[in-house]
């Protein structure tokens, strides 16, 4: 090439790299794992995913204290709750102690005549009052008389108790030393809500750090050095996952770079060749990040993890370039024969990765774009820029003996074709025998949470009496009031179903905050003060109550008659506000009331009772989650098949011969089958990410099998070709293999699958090619 042309190429390259680097530098990086939870199809499923990631549920942190004797745990729980209550990062702290419940109790007491469902005209009629007073007399005989006689003058009808019972079902956590404890009594429990949303990982991380230091201070103050703080919850998991990803991505990328560099140095014995080999990779990675940033607005940490894999494939092009140049010889001949095959290899990889771009998983779509742009850029740099940087007669003398050894092995590889056939047949037999248990059908398999953390989370949830809800009724309406009224209507139905024994109970936002209409109805049920006094006097006739004892009641009930209605704002600062927020949700298109059901025994009766109600939906969360996962897997399977089909078509079209295409695809098919069998051999099940990995095996593996195809192989210098193939494959296996060490399931599943599959593709390609060569 002429000097002017050379300079032009270099200027264009440097300009592009600089532009991409600028974009990449200014890109925002996220690690929100919801990118790997797909956008969901149905409205109810979208609500589900949305709530999981930003709703009040996502802001809950379950805290456990253990490691010291129970009385000390109780004291620590109090001390920690006291400190956290003053931290601005936390909206709500509860450890079950009476002190924490005071605000709730005061609220209930103050508004009892608007909140209690007992406030009806019958209650304030003579018979109702008489019944209430007789009941009071019974209670005075009980061991609770000290408490009863205190509340009696202001609340003889027991509305405070009634509104309290409504909100505190019996299934609360157990208490020791005045605070919540685990069932086995070894762990004090607290429930904390952060002010920031669960997906705001920076804020969650800050809140957790505050909590740790508050705990340390409390433990130091109480001299409880052995006490341990355990935290769990969506935000905690997100913070841990981010730390894992950050650490993994940096570590794995560096490690892959190091290992590949050492390998290349050993083979090339030329630092200059090493630097030149890494140039396309660096350019490709920069371009990939820039493209993702421009297309998605931010770059996911997991996407960066794929830098390591890009390294594996991106070095290939330079390896072909260098190993196929013989020092001192004319560089053109050998290379000219390699490029068309290499180009086809890049295209098959690109087709494989592009299937990912249609995924509903934002994260997978990013991986696809990153890899496509990165590969094309690396290829272009290797093809057009590297030759300009390499001196005319530069070449590497690869480690002597490596080429001949590979050639020797390749020439005898055909001997393995019978074992290969047996292996494939065994794999098919194994896979068909396990067809039922091959797939992991649980949505949780997508979760980045470690098994041990998950178990602790479940245990703490069970102890806190907050087990996972399976059935949920959702009522949607245009306004807050309409949603509350809908919840009241559904609640009446549910109460009816409960009396039939089909369910144990339910929560409702309307039990915490009745609709305005319901509150007005209650106000209307209260008689005039004078009427009430007269009825009370009659009702108390012949009962031993002191006269005028109930004057505070008459005063307060009359005040409630004209009091302003209770609104959501009045709940501020109480634990009830947190619960209301989690059950009554403002959405862009209206309001949604959620009524979680406890212990549904007969879903049929339930569904029948709710049928026909407008804007009301019964959600089976487990059913929905399973359906969601199956739909994700169906989509992944579809994408994988379309991707593999596109690769086959591409090969067919460019090789212009079904036989040649078949020669390329046959070893790949064998590799995919055996990889599946190996992955499941240990009893492991395959998930969505393994499926994606298999598609990549086809896309990446074709790079090797293409070269073994008879006509291509015949045109090249076999020793040098085999050496480049071995080096390329080794770097790919290193890149993806190291990725399998990552803790994020998406990275490790794809890494393992591709590392195994890519190696098998090369091996099987050699075995099947050898048959034809000899």
């Amino acid at each position, binding site marked *: 090439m002429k000097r002017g042309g050379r300079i032009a190429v270099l200027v264009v390259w440097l300009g592009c790299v600089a532009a991409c680097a600028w974009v990449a530098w200014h890109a925002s990086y996220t690690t929100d794992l919801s990118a790997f939870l797909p956008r969901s199809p149905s409205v109810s499923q979208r609500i589900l995913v949305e709530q999981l990631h930003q709703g009040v549920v996502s802001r809950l942190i379950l805290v456990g204290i253990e490691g010291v004797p129970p009385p000390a745990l109780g004291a620590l729980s109090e001390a920690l709750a006291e400190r956290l209550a003053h931290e601005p990062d936390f909206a709500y702290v509860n450890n079950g102690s009476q002190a924490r419940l005071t605000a709730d109790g005061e609220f209930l007491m103050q508004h009892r005549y608007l909140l209690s469902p007992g406030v009806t005209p019958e209650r304030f009629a003579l018979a109702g009052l008489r019944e209430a007073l007789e009941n009071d007399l019974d209670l005075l*005989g009980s061991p609770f008389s*000290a408490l009863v006689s205190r509340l009696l003058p202001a609340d003889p009808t027991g509305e405070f108790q009634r509104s309290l019972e409504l909100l505190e079902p019996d299934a609360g956590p157990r208490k020791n030393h005045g605070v919540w404890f685990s069932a086995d009594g070894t762990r004090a429990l607290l429930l904390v809500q952060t002010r920031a949303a669960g997906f705001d990982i920076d804020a969650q991380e800050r809140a957790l750090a505050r909590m740790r230091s508050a705990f340390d201070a409390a433990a130091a103050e109480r001299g409880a050095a052995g006490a341990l703080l355990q935290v769990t919850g969506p935000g905690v998991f997100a913070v841990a996952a981010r730390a894992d990803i950050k650490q993994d991505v940096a570590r794995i990328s560096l490690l892959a770079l190091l290992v590949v560099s050492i390998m290349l140095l050993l083979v090339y014995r030329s630092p200059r060749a090493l630097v030149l080999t890494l140039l396309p990779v660096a350019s490709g990675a920069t371009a990939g990040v820039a493209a993702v940033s421009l297309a998605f607005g931010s770059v996911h940490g997991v996407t960066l993890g794929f830098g390591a894999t890009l390294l594996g494939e991106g070095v290939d092009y330079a390896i072909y370039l260098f190993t196929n140049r013989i020092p001192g010889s004319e560089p053109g001949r050998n290379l000219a024969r390699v490029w068309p095959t290499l180009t086809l290899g890049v295209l098959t990889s690109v087709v494989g990765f592009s299937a990912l771009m249609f995924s509903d998983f934002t994260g997978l779509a990013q991986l696809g774009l990153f890899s496509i742009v990165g590969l094309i850029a690396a290829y272009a740099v290797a093809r057009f820029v590297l030759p300009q940087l390499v001196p005319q007669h530069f070449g590497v003398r690869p480690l002597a003996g490596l080429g001949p050894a590979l050639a020797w092995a390749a020439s005898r590889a055909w001997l393995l074709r019978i074992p290969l056939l047996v292996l494939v047949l065994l794999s098919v037999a194994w896979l068909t025998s396990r067809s039922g248990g091959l797939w992991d059908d649980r949505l949780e398999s997508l979760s980045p949470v470690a098994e041990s953390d998950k178990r602790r989370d479940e245990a703490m949830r069970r102890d806190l009496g907050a087990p996972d809800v399976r059935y949920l009724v959702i009522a949607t309406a245009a306004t807050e009031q309409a949603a509350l009224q809908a919840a009241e209507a559904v609640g009446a139905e549910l109460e009816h179903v409960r009396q039939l024994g089909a369910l144990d109970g339910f929560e409702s936002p309307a039990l915490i905050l009745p609709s305005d209409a319901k509150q007005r109805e209650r106000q209307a049920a209260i008689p005039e003060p004078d009427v009430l006094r007269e009825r009370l006097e009659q009702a108390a006739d012949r009962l*031993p109550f002191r006269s005028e004892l109930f004057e505070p009641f008459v005063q307060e009930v009359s005040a409630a008659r004209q009091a302003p209605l209770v609104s959501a704002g009045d709940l501020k600062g109480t634990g009830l506000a947190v619960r209301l927020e989690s059950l009554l949700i403002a959405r862009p298109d209206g309001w949604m009331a959620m009524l979680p059901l406890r212990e549904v025994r007969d879903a049929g009766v339930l569904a029948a009772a709710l049928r026909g109600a407008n804007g009301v939906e019964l959600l089976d969360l487990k059913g929905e989650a399973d359906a969601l996962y199956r739909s994700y897997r169906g989509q992944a399977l579809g994408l994988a098949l379309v991707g593999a089909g596109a690769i086959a078509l591409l090969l067919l079209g460019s090789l212009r011969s079904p036989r040649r295409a078949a020669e390329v695809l046959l070893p790949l098919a064998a590799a995919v089958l055996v990889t599946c069998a190996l992955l499941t051999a240990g009893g492991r099940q395959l998930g969505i990410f393994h499926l994606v990995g298999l598609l990549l095996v086809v896309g990446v593996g074709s790079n090797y099998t293409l070269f073994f195809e008879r006509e291509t192989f015949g045109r090249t210098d076999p020793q040098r070709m085999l050496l480049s193939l071995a080096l390329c494959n080794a770097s790919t296996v290193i890149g993806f293999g190291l990725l399998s060490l990552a803790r994020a399931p998406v990275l490790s599943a794809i890494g393992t699958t591709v590392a195994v599959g890519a190696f098998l593709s090369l091996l099987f390609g050699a075995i099947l090619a050898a048959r034809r060569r000899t």
Partner: protein
Amino acid sequence: MRRSSVLSWVLAALVPAALAAEPEAVEQQSLAQPWGLEQLMVELGRVQHSQARFVERKYLKVLKTPLELTGTLAYDAPNRLVKRTLEPKPETLTVEDDRLVIESPARGRSRTLRLGEYPVLWAFVESFRSTLKGDLAALERFYRVALEGGPQRWQLSLMPRDPKMSTLIESILIDGGKGRIRRIEVREAQGDRSVMTVLEDAP
């Protein structure tokens, strides 16, 4: 706090004097130790099973006349105690280990409470149960304990240690003699009080 501790100090100082006044004390003195809390507890703890009738009068400020309840009591060592109210409304309270079961047939309700979750209720239950059991350590966990009198006639006064409990209950006075409890008086902080008289063993 200060007043109570002074009180218990005074009570403690009075005990030997009261003992000396009792003729039985002379008998006891022949033993290695003088009669006191420890001996009383040993005596009470010997009883494995007991049953009695009771009459309870509650003097409440909200009522013009005292409330009277009657029924039976049953104790099985070491941890089971049943108070069965027959009049005016049947109600059964059963304490077993750390569980309190309240059964009110009239209201068709049965509730189970864990004492650990209701410290005040727990302390209240232990005033009675630990005394029957002769468990001084348990009593002293909840109360400052003082004893007056001798084996024939004694009075235990229990002052709650927990400030939360003392806002409800000022003191509990348990009278007895000859290894039996005869009367329990609960003085509430608000001025209400209840007196339970334990009558001879039920047939």
